[in-house]
């Protein structure tokens, strides 16, 4: 049976924890709003370029297995965000193992965010090509996205995949893989024949491929950030709720203990007085 003092200390610490989680929840809620606006703005941007390119470089079910795969997995740097990072790590692990099972030799992963890296590093670190920390220093910029696209394209692969948490609603987000075929596909005959090109077709298509990749990475990062904030908000919300319940229970226990102690003291005094 803990003493009154210990219970009192515990009560204090749980109260301050609940204050922290409530504050974090409010901060996450406001950041979520902002992130949602950014994401909504970027969606038509991404759609305009992807609608042009995806019919040609999107990976469909019936396509054959690529020979090399390079994946970019997006996670966060900060914790206390619920399950987004662990889900991401799980999906990436499963995905990479599936590729290995299909015969892809050494699929590689670029990991953005330290939480994802930490989750995968003990068991699946052989897949890592590069990991990026503290990339979310400021706001998510297109510069970051194009830097990552350049890193991805630095090593040629048959297929490029982006793993991110797709934001469907505040409580519904899931890990999605966005896969592209390599740029060689665009060299095939009959690709984009219905369009005229101002300038050389190969050049423009190469540029457009890179642009498409960067734009896709940009929108995926924004979606991931939004999902992360939403997840953090719900996680902190449930943490605050749990903390409040615990405070109630502890308070009752504390009061009972305190009153019992007082009663004991009184009884002793009375007994002592009577014996005199």
């Amino acid at each position, binding site marked *: 049976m803990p003493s009154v003092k210990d219970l009192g200390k515990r009560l204090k610490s749980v109260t301050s924890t609940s204050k922290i989680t409530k504050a974090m929840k409010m901060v996450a809620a406001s950041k979520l709003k902002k992130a949602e606006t950014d994401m909504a703005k970027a969606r038509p941007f991404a759609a*305009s370029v992807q609608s042009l390119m995806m019919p040609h470089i999107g990976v469909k079910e019936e396509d054959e297995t690529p020979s090399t795969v390079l994946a970019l997995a997006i996670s966060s740097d900060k914790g206390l965000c619920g399950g987004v990072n662990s889900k991401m790590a799980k999906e990436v692990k499963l995905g990479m193992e599936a590729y290995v099972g299909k015969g892809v030799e050494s699929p590689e992963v670029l990991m953005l965010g330290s939480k994802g890296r930490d*989750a995968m*590093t*003990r068991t699946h670190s052989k897949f890592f090509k590069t990991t990026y920390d503290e990339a979310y220093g400021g706001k998510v910029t297109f*510069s970051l996205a194009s830097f990552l696209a350049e890193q991805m394209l630095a090593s040629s692969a048959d297929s490029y995949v982006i793993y991110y948490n797709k934001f469907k609603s505040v409580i519904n987000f899931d890990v999605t893989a966005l896969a592209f075929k390599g740029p060689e596909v665009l060299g095939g005959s009959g690709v984009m024949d219905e369009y*005229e090109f*101002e300038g050389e077709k190969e050049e423009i298509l190469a540029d457009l491929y*890179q*642009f498409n990749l960067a734009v896709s990475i940009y929108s995926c990062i924004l979606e991931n950030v939004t999902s992360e904030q939403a997840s953090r908000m719900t996680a902190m919300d449930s943490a605050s709720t749990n903390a409040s319940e615990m405070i109630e229970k502890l308070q009752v226990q504390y009061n009972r203990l305190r009153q019992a102690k007082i009663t004991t003291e009184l009884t002793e005094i009375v007994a002592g007085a009577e014996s005199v």
Partner: protein
Amino acid sequence: MLSNALRTGARPLAAGALRSSLARQAAPAARLVHATRAAREDAPKARRSAAPSPSRPSPPATAASPNLGRSRCRNLPCPLNRHTPSAAPPPPPQVEMVILPGVDGQFGVMPNHVPTIAELKPGVVSVQEAAGGPLTKYFVSGGFASIGEDSKLAVSTLMAAPLEELDADAIKTGLAQYQAAYEKARRAPGLSRGPSRNLRGAASELSWNLRSRLGTSRDPPEPLPSPSDTRPRPARDPPETRPRPFPRRPTTWSSPRRRSASRSTRRCRTPSPRREQRRGVACVRGPGGV
């Protein structure tokens, strides 16, 4: 509608070779830009859909960003959205003609244009809503334009702003700032060519915008005179003969400090006696949703 201010750090991608330059938008440019960051942020402009042919309805033109006032040199691309706090109305869905700054020169698009994909360099897009009417001009930071079969024109750029909202003074200040930063970057030891090329390109874009805004010339800009640099340039980076906004060669980056490439163990950054003991072991955290 269109975000105000000009984005110099972010440039549209692409260069000839496959591996080439997304460099422009990459870290050093971003870092540089952080130094001169304006308060506001925008996101990449997505698309201005104009259906020139009156018989075909088009989706409502997209308009941009949190455009709240005078332009400044700002860093982030502005995405397109349909809410226009800015004064300028979004371009109407059906227009007569649009003049676009392609990399090979300006070209015009009218209704029933053959389906085309074109790469744009940073420049001015002019929209003529009615035949013979006035031209509405926007500065775009490069990107791609595609004309579909139903005469729908989609312009995908990172940044777009109506010319009226661009502030010549802010542009001049920004140009000076970028040139100063460029000087600094060139002199900084250990930087590879990549960042400085970014800066050069960024400064060149700024100067182009400046000139076009002030109406001096519509011609492609010549690259800014680089500060006197007598170091021999490596052979694989010839001087650009055509003022393309993006270099063609892959750039090699010295990894920016804030992005650490690490493999399986995390480096403990601050040495301390206790950490030294634990160095090889405890820097690896367990898995799970921390």
